[in-house]
C-alpha cells in the first residue's frame, strides 16, 4: 500500500519479550510480513519485566499507543512471568480506561516465536486502531509536545 505521509503517523512502542514475541517479530521480518514503521520494538527479557511506569513514560514522552507482547500464557520461558504481566496490565489498562484514556491505545497480545503472521497482523491492526484514535492528548506531557 502506498504510504500517505499526510496522514497521522502515530508513535507506537512495542515491548516484546525476548523469547517469544521478539522472535515472532524476527520471524515477521524474515517472512517479509510488513507492518507500519510507526512501531518501534523494545526488547525485554519477559513481559513481566514491563513496569507500568514504562508505559506511562512512553505516553508522557509522546507515544500514541503502547503494546506489550509476550509468550502465550503457559509458554513463558520463565514459566510464570506472563501470568503476572497479564494481571498487572489488566489492572493498569482498566485504570487508564477509568481515567478516560481511550482504551484502544493500550494492548497486550500473546505472540509466540512461530507467529510471525500474528505479529504482523497484530501490529497492523493496532496501528490502525491508534491512527483512528488520533494523537494522544489525554496522557502526555505538554513539555514534550513541540
Amino acid at each position, binding site marked *: 500500500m502506498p504510504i500517505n505521509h499526510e496522514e497521522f503517523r502515530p508513535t507506537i512502542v512495542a515491548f516484546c519479550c525476548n523469547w517469544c514475541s521478539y522472535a515472532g517479530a524476527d520471524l515477521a521480518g524474515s517472512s517479509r510480513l510488513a507492518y507500519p514503521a510507526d512501531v518501534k520494538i523494545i526488547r525485554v527479557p519477559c513481559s513481566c519485566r514491563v513496569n*507500568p*511506569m514504562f508505559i*506511562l513514560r512512553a*505516553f*508522557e514522552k509522546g507515544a500514541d499507543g503502547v503494546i506489550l507482547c509476550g509468550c502465550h*500464557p*503457559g509458554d513463558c520461558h520463565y514459566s*510464570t512471568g506472563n*501470568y*503476572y504481566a*497479564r*494481571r*498487572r*496490565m*489488566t*489492572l*493498569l*489498562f*482498566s*485504570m*487508564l*480506561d*477509568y*481515567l*478516560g*484514556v*481511550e*482504551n*484502544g491505545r*493500550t*494492548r*497486550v497480545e500473546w505472540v509466540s516465536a512461530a507467529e510471525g503472521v500474528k505479529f504482523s497482523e497484530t501490529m497492523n491492526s493496532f496501528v490502525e486502531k491508534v491512527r483512528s484514535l488520533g494523537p494522544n492528548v*489525554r*496522557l*502526555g*506531557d*505538554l*513539555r514534550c509536545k513541540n
Partner: protein
Amino acid sequence: MQELINRAKSLLESGEVSRVLGWRKGETDWDVEPAFFNSAEELSEFIYNGFCGANLSKYMIEASKLEGKTLVFLKPCDTYSFNQLCKEHRVDREKAYIIGVGCKGKLKIENIDAAGILEVRGAGYPDASEILTVKTLYGDREVSYKSAMLERCHVCKGKEHMVYDERMGESADTSDADRFAEVAKIEAMSPEEKFAFFQSELSKCIRCNACRNVCPACSCRKCVFDSTKFDSAQKANTTSFEEKMFHIIRAFHVAGRCTDCGECSRVCPQGIPLHLFNRKFIKDINALYGDYQAGADTDSKGPLTDFRLDDCEPSIVTKRG
C-alpha cells in the same frame, strides 16, 4: 476514655509495654494528634474521641525498631493495615501490644461548617451521639453525626478487629453506602466525562505527598518519586500529566495491598477523592480475581503476586466497553 488511660497506665507500670501510641489532646476538639506517651504523667494528655481518625498502624514501623513493646490503640479498620504491614515484614507483631479500641465512626471537621468553631459536643467516645452540637463564634448549630463522618466510615468494613491482644469499648458498623457506588458511577461515564472529572479533581493536586506519607501501604523507605535512581523523581506537578502519573503509579503500587483505610482522602488538603483510585483497583480485583480484602490476614498471597492459569485477558477492558 478513662478506662483506656487506666489500662495503658497499668501496662506501662507493669513493664509489659515501654510506651503507648495513641492520640493527644489538641487546641480544640478536632485538633488531636497521634502521639507516643512514655509515662503515666504524659497520659494525662491522652484523648480518644470522634476526631481520632488517624490510623496509627504506620507509626508502628518506627515503633518496631525501638526497645520493648509499644501499646498501640487500633480501631477495627486500622487493624487491617497493621496485618498488611505484618505480612510485608514492616512491623513486628512481637513488638506490639494491640488494644482493639471501639469505634462508632470518625468525624471530619471539614464536614462540619468550619467557620469559627470553638467546641464540638457529642463527638466523644463512647457516647457518639446522633446529633453534634457545635459552638461557633457566630452562634451555635447542630449537625447529624452521620453527615459529619469521614467518607470511609460510610463504607465501614465492620466492627471486628482483625488482630488484637485485647479489646476495649464498643464498636458499630457505620456503613450506610455501597462501597463501589462512586466507582461504578464513574465507570458508567463516557471517556470524555471520566477524563473531565479526573482532570478537574487532579488539577487541584499540589503534590504535598500527604496522601503518600499517611498511607500505611506506601511504606517504602524511599518512594520512587523521590528516588533519583528510577529517573522518576518529581517534586511538583509541572504539567497535568505528572499528577496522573503520580496517582496512577501510587495506586498501582498499593494495588492488592491497600486495605481501603481511607487515610489518603482524609488528609488531602485539596479534598481530592483519592480513594476512588484505590477502590477502582479493589473493585477490579474483586470482580476479576475473586474477593480479596488486604489485611484480613497475614499469610494470603496478594492478588498481584498471584495468578490463575485462566485469568482474564487484558482485552477485557476493551470488551466490557
